[in-house]
């Protein structure tokens, strides 16, 4: 079993380029470490790309000769918990819209790392507003659309940028995965068929995993013929990779919970427009939610969305992160800073909003040991603002990733 997991994980490893690590000191009139109390007149010292110290200016010495940057407000680098940026060309031209493969309903073998364009202009756009980490990959629209990745918003190649090469397997339950009359394929044509196809595929993967384990226990037994599709679903069944399930309507969310329980798999709910109707059930299942963009249009299966959902889930104790979502037209991407911001007039507090775009997102993505707060030992990722980060009229003034000032644009 262990051997299997290691070999599967190794298959997803990418050569990681030598990151340009650097030293920098960021002085903030107010620093929000997020996992600790705000610090007035503070300093974040980053050495060799990692946070070395954070505290009041009186307690953190700034070494001579080090680059120093000042800002009114400093937060951890922000995290976009689900996007298709990097997978999709921002001008919507044929030939670079790689966020969704429509040839089959279930293709978990598709890897975001094989499509991600680290030089896509919208990555720089997100970085300008202090977003330093994104969870990107195949979007909703097929029952299983592919494997997502987690990347920093700097780096010229996917190898430079990537944090987790295969983060989650993206799935869609409900009408979002149902074929319409104009589609070439007949199935899935109903909600029930979506669920039946997903369950059948997970059963196949369970058999594959069983055969694999049997061959490891018994030298007489051959392992099954290698199958990339089954390998990636096996990792979902073993709990190594969560299933990111996009579901908006309450009945579809219920189906997601039912399937998670049936197969004992970890899921992360994505979108979840009507999740406010199932707060008790979601909390009881211990499932986090990557909520739809607050400013998403209330159309189709999202017609019942609410600006208050994030606040209601968080009040109930459900982990919530924000996403920029999946857009086909304008805006080509949303910005989690802005999405979290508009919920402030709908019940979310400043602290809850800031946590949702930093440490909560990091925990949901399983990368909180590296990012999501300003703590010694974590990556040197910071967002700099000239005021309350969420205020409409505040400007992002700088972004630091791995100790490098990667943006000094005022926007």
């Amino acid at each position, binding site marked *: 079993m262990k051997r299997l997991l290691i070999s599967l994980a190794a298959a997803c490893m990418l050569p990681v380029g030598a990151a340009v690590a650097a030293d920098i000191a960021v002085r903030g009139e107010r620093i929000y470490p997020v996992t600790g109390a705000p610090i007035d007149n503070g300093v974040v010292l980053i050495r060799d790309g990692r946070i070395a110290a954070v505290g009041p200016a009186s307690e953190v010495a700034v070494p001579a000769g080090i680059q120093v940057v000042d800002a009114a407000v400093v937060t951890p680098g922000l995290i976009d918990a689900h996007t298709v940026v990097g997978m999709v060309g921002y*001008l*919507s031209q044929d030939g670079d819209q790689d966020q969704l493969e429509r040839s089959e309903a279930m293709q978990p073998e598709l890897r975001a790392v094989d499509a991600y364009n680290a030089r896509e202009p919208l990555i720089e756009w997100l970085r300008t507003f202090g977003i330093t980490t994104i969870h990107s990959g195949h979007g909703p629209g097929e029952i299983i659309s592919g494997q997502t990745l987690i990347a920093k918003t700097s780096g010229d190649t996917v190898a430079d940028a990537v944090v987790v090469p295969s983060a989650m397997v993206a799935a869609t339950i409900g009408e979002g995965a149902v074929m319409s009359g104009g589609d070439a394929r007949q199935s899935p044509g109903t909600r029930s068929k979506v669920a039946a196809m997903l369950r059948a595929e997970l059963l196949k993967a369970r058999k594959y995993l069983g055969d694999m384990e049997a061959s490891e226990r018994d030298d007489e037994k051959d392992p099954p013929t290698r199958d990339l599709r089954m390998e990636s679903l096996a990792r979902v069944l073993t709990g190594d990779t969560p299933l990111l399930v996009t579901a908006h309507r309450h009945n579809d969310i219920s189906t997601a919970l039912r399937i998670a329980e049936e197969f004992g798999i970890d899921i992360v709910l994505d979108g979840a427009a009507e999740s406010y109707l199932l707060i008790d059930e979601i909390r009881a299942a211990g499932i986090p939610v990557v909520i739809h963009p607050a400013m998403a249009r209330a159309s189709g299966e999202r017609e019942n969305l609410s*600006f208050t959902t994030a606040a209601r889930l968080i009040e109930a104790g459900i982990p919530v992160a924000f996403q920029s979502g999946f857009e086909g037209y304008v805006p080509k991407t949303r*910005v989690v800073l802005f999405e979290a911001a508009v919920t402030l*007039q709908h019940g979310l507090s400043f602290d809850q909003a800031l946590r949702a775009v930093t440490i909560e997102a990091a925990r949901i993505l399983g990368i909180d040991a590296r990012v999501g707060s300003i703590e010694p030992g974590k990556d040197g990722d910071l967002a700099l603002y000239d005021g309350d980060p969420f205020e409409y*009229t505040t400007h992002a003034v700088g972004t630091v990733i791995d100790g490098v000032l990667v943006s000094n644009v005022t926007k």
Partner: protein
Amino acid sequence: MTKPSQALPIMLTISLLAAVTAGEAGAETLAFTGATIMPVASEPIEDGVLVIEDAEIVAVGAAGSVRVPRNAEVVDATGKVIIPGLVDSHSHIGEVAGADRSAPIQPEARVLDSINVRDAGVRRALAGGVTTANLMSGSGHLMSGQTIYVKLRDGNSIESIAYKRPDGRVAGGMKMANGTNPRRDPPFPGTRAKAAALVRQQFVAAQEYAAKIEAADGDASKMPDRDLGKEALLEVLDGSRMVHHHTHRHDDILTVLRLKEEFGFRVVLHHVSEAHRVADEIAAAGVPVSLIVIDSPGGKLEAQYTDFENAPALERAGAEVGFHTDDYVTDSRLFLRQAAFGVRAGMSREKALEAMTLAGARMLDLEDRIGTLERGKDADFVVLSGDPFSVYTQVLETWVEGVKRFDRSDPDDRAVAEGGFGVLQPSTAFEFHGYAEGHR
């Protein structure tokens, strides 16, 4: 049965309520006190007083300087901010439709004949402080139809919410577009030059139609056959029907200015992603601009260089600037965010508020009736919880012609402001830009 002793007070209450809700049964006078009032026509007033009588503003000023009529019901608005009703110069609420796919130029199509006044978009707009809107057909045509200016009063039909021109006809403009959206297979244009040629040909034909009418000199036997499209184009040519022109790229913007010069129509530029590149030319042409702030560039070729900087660049150049929602491209409930992002990019707060109100009114030729808080204007205003450009500010109340049309303290209205299960029905699931107009 109601006891006789109770009957009279109940009847009085009912009649009073009727007067308040209808706003027309007898003189209803309200005085809002204690608020910061931003009249747009003048400097903000701390501790201001706004007095309205029925559907009209009768006084605005500082406490002590304004006489509050003895019969006025005083509304304490201490700590709140009152601004003029917002004017959305480009919206697609009401399931609006215009031209179909048969031809690229269809001036005869009237938005008037398509609007569903019960569309949930109307309630979203009120929740965002919008009191007047220009309802437009789409940008998938060079000319997609006659737009309509509506007042978001309680109305059961499009006629009951339409603004009327002084001659009694329904007020509206003409929607036009260039750039990428109207490009399709024939009979639609395949290039920019073709698009301009098709438009010029139509205007030339309209000029000839006008010449025939003039030559007939009132002789019915010599009049040309009635042509609904050309009749509308004549209104464009004589300046009584404003052109509202979708345009993004700098050269497309200049093409609009060139055609305006040739045919003499009046025009408002809409969206105008690359306004920052030709701000001086726009200002020199004296053409107003209705901007939209989109959260990222791109989505299509012509929006590649859109920038928050458009608003301050146009302000610096001296051009008239307004904003619009393009609802449901952006949500009417967040209309104030548009101007707030203008301020973020460097626009003055004064011009930003003017852009949301008076500038929009001018773009619709309605500045005599709306756009500022001044004596004699319609009692259209918004009560805010604070700074109009703060993310923390809520729209508390929206008043149209002296009637409270949105009240956040009412659970049903609050639900519209927030969304929720079954709230926005009939659905605004109308994918206007995605499907109806076919310009992905």
